[in-house]
């Protein structure tokens, strides 16, 4: 019995490591803050959370206010991932949640007055229309990348293994 074993070639394709998106610009907040209609105390820490995870915080420098509109004012800076764009940011002082909630977008800055009133948690949507969509980059997928090296190399083991298998099958006949 004659068997022909074709030549085997192995195409070795260089693998390109996965690349994350460019980090989206943070979302900044400043404004007034009241607890039960009373200005919050200076020094109180306001937390921003997405799905229960802290994504930023700021300390109120003065009673009833946090941050400011000046370039160098300290604001509540929310750093979210690209996958969190469009999800709601909630605002907290300790275990108290503010009535206001805002959808995360990249690169926005918003004056947001926060009110902490029991029973009103997360009931007021203060989301804005995103204006900084140009700060989301379009990175080529791995499929679109040039392949740095592509090598054709003979696979030595396969012909021997295939030949051995065929030899054994031939002996069974």
């Amino acid at each position, binding site marked *: 019995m004659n068997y022909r074993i074709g030549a085997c070639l192995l195409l070795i394709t260089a693998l390109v*490591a996965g690349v994350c998106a460019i980090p989206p610009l943070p979302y900044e907040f400043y404004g007034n803050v009241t607890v039960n209609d009373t200005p919050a105390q200076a020094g109180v820490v306001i937390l921003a959370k997405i799905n229960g995870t802290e994504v930023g915080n700021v300390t109120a420098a003065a009673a009833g206010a946090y941050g400011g509109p000046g370039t160098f004012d300290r604001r509540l800076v929310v750093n979210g991932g690209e996958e969190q764009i469009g999800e709601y940011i909630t605002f907290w002082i300790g275990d108290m949640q503010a009535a206001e909630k805002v959808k995360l977008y990249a690169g926005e800055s918003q004056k947001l007055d926060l009110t902490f009133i029991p029973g009103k948690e997360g009931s007021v949507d203060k989301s804005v229309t995103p204006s900084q969509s140009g700060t989301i980059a379009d*990175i080529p997928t791995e499929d679109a990348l040039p392949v740095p090296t592509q090598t054709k190399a003979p696979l030595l083991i396969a012909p021997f293994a295939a030949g051995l298998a065929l030899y054994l099958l031939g002996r069974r006949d």
Partner: protein
Amino acid sequence: MQPSSGFETAEVFKSVQSAGHSILTYDGSSGWVTIGKNDLLRPMTGYWIYSTTSVSIPLTASGIPTESKALTTGWNLAGVSGTTAQTAELALSGLSSWTYVVTYDNSSQQYRDAGVKGAQAQTMLAPGEGFWIYVNSPESLSPAA
């Protein structure tokens, strides 16, 4: 270039009308960093500045930077030194593991198409213009002579 005396801190941007946006840079380890007015401006580092109007900020620089720019694995916000624009392939020839560069067109308020190492289309990197660079391992971007 190395900022000259009197132009070393972010206070040079105090006249920018930023509409409540901070001046930002990006650290590969800690993420976005808010810049204070007394923070030093570092050569070969990219800064994001939002301005409601077109504005010119006079900056004076002298000499080549004295330090290299450390790049961490992943995305970094960087810049090139020197006085002339160069292709990314040339400007980044000292780096072995970069794969992407992305620049921002402030006139259209959009990122330009990403530059890919080894691709035919060349991305130009200009002094004074920050860019994103992705590296696969820690590297050091040296100042051009």
